[in-house]
């Protein structure tokens, strides 16, 4: 199912110019699939990171002229730092959004929904 999230993210990024798809899509996924907040963060964060990392590395191959300029402009010490920055944005936004989705569902239910690709979460003890 994570593959579905990755595919949807990639498609929407290719079809539209909006960067913020890494927020609503993982959020919806979080509402739907994960069994814990931590797992949701991992699922959303890693999916979005992957979706941003792959094209970053791909397009960087053609940006020999551009990258040194952007490094100077952004005062980053190296192009790799720019790549790390992009991946971190995807990781944090995607992860947090997915976790938020999970927490929304969790607020309405007492028990997580069993997932195809993830073990069922333990029922949290009621306080």
């Amino acid at each position, binding site marked *: 199912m994570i593959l579905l999230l990755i595919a949807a993210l990639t498609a929407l*990024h*290719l079809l539209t*110019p*909006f*960067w*913020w798809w890494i*927020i609503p899509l993982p959020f919806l996924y979080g509402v739907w699939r994960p069994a814990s*907040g931590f797992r949701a963060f991992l699922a959303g964060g890693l999916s979005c990171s992957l979706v*941003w990392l792959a*094209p*970053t590395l*791909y*397009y*960087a191959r*053609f*940006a*020999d*002229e*551009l*990258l*040194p*300029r*952007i*490094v*100077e*402009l*952004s005062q980053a010490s190296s192009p790799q730092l*720019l790549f790390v*920055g*992009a991946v971190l*944005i995807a990781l*944090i*936004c995607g992860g*947090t*959004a997915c*976790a*938020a989705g999970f*927490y*929304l569902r*969790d*607020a309405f239910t007492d028990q997580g929904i069993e997932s195809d690709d993830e073990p069922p979460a333990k029922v949290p003890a009621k*306080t």
Partner: protein
Amino acid sequence: MKWFKFFASVSILAILFYFLNYPRGIQPPIGKFLNPFSGYLQNGEDDILPDELNVTGLVEAVQVRWDERRVPHVFAENDHDLYFTQGFLEARDRLWQMDFLSRAAGGRIAEVVGESMLEYDRYRRRIGMRLAAERMLEEVGKDSGSHAALMAYTNGVNAWINQLAAKDFPLEFKLLDYSPEAWTPIKSLLILKYLAWDLTGYSEELLLTRTREQLGDSLLQKLLLPSLTRSRPVAGSKTQWKFKPDVVPTAPDSIYRPEKPLAEQLPLRPDPHNGSNNWAVSGSRTVNGNAILSNDVHLGFTLPSIWYEIQLAAPDVNVYGVSLPGLPAVVIGFNSDVSWGLTNAQTDVLDWYEVEFEAGSAKRYLYDGKWLEADLLIEDIRMRGGRVVRDTIPVTRHGLVVYKKDEVVTNKGVPAGAALRWVAHDASNELLAFLKLNRAKTHQEALTALKTYQTPALNFAFATGEGDIAIHHLGKLPMRWKHQGRFVSDGRDPAYDWQGWIPREHLPKLVNPAEGYVASSNQLPTTQGYPYNLYGKYASFERSVRIAEMLEPGKKISAKAMRDLQLDVLNVRAREVLPTMMQLLPWEDLSLSEADQIDLLNDWDFRQDRTSEAATFFSFWWQYISHITWQNEFESEDEKLLYPPDEVLMQLILEEPESPFFDIDSSAIVETCSEVLLLAFQQTRQQLYNKYDPLEKGWEWGNVQGTDMLHMARIKGLGRVGLVTDGAPIVVNATKRVHGPTWRMVVEMSNPIKAWGIYPGGQSGNPGSKNYDATIDDWRDGVFYELNYLQKASELDDGTVLRP
């Protein structure tokens, strides 16, 4: 707790979204910018046009051929398609530059950058840039040919914009976080007016007015307005003016002196940044027997480059040269019959008139003893974020009142309460002139083409296939009485109005002179025998003298010699005055270590080479001599006045070394030139040791002067700084820190034409393209590229067919 976790994570998301989606100051929105699908990485690759492309708006198919420097050679079946394609290609390569320049001209930068640019925008509105462009548009509308070309160009630009996806926007749009908007004809004309202001929008009137108050009339005349004789005038030294001149108006009995507050304003010490050269040599003087034209056009360096190289061919035209992105036609270039090059004429076409408004009114002003009503020009200046600032500008019969008397003046040099009279505000159609010039087949046709040319006034040099050479000091030049417009004028008195125009047929010119060459380098246009009064901040004599001596009769000149002359760095001033300075310098008062620099100067070949340490020492020494000599008369703690031209100081050193001007008021002894030279020598040495460690970078001229090509919007990282270059302001290769030769061209009018050229930068405006700054190193090293002037498209293989 569950809800807390939800709300906590949503809050984090909201904060993240805010920081990643919106720009902060001039920082781009980070999320948008780093998004690999549509952010900066999409600009890393050169966009290559396919072999065939369908473009809506074309009438017939257009062949575009590319050479190895990505210069497009456009072959169209009709003029519409020709200029449509020019717009399409220039938008493809320079869209952001075009957008930014038109905004900069029209005062619309704050819309995309924010409130920090409000004053900049306000000033652009108040000097009437938009008004000037609108009047020009109205004039262009009266001529079907130029109007059609402008509309075709506009549609071509929009055809490119309309097919752009957000990911394809030029990098600067992403950095500044805005989108390209539809191109309009007024934007093209604003860019032309931007150039006009760049070349003519400086003024010494306030500075000279103030200097007159300080020095008095006779000293002003002797030092500031002397008759300078070293320069070789554009129209030649021996020209006889055979026409019967129109009646030149006479000066009023007493010259107006503005009231004190005006004279107390802080004036601008303008640097008109001249440096352009053009010359043409007759076939009788060249190695191959063909007339040759040379032109190096000096403007502020920018990246992307100000110029775009292009060939435009249609059934009635085949022209090659550089265009100004945003405007149809070639501005400087050649066809198979005529070549032309431009330098700034420097003749003053801008005056300030002090306006007396009725007490309590911003509208009623006094003129010729009557109260007249000013028009009010309303300008709405939009800020990023939506705020709108409304500005109301009174427009008197002389022009726009840029600052009201009680306003804070944010642009030095602009007198408060004065109206701006600028020729570029008058309706004109320079576009038509360039369109016709592109098609001219003879010198006479070229002149006829320029009938509608008004501003900025330029020196047009021509060489033709028929063998004619000519230079014309051309523009709409006001008829002036003696000294009219040199000082702030009285807006109440009709005697100060411009009294008509110098007839075009009487403008300075030199056609096929016996010497076999014509030349200009922003210098004085005529000798004193010329019957009309022309004033301006003309360039010092050195470049004109050097070009003249290199083109003097007796030598056969080749195109290579022409290219070499553009790169010439011999300092004529140093050659003339340094030997005398070395004689006058009291060596015996120098220490042993100071004497090292004596050898340096004695061994100097007067060349401003990048490796020369002597060039550095002389340049600094001269500045100190000037400062020490004139500081008594021209500076005090709180005010600065206009210094005399350097030629006056040269004259004093060479002929009046005991002049009282060399005496320093604050010292007990009476100084002569020798003491000033010694003091300046020691200060120079001290300054150079303090500032440039001889053991590190050293005093090499290229390091000390250096050249920076900053990005047009001053975005860090997108320019090239610290270039080590040859040249100096007063040598033929007048390369300076931020100003210099932006297009070098030599054209031999052979059959077929042979031409060479280069500009610093590259055809692409994309900082991610190798063609963004590819030519800078070659340009710095004096390389010229052979220009591919094609007769038919099939001469080059690589190409694109644009189909309707």
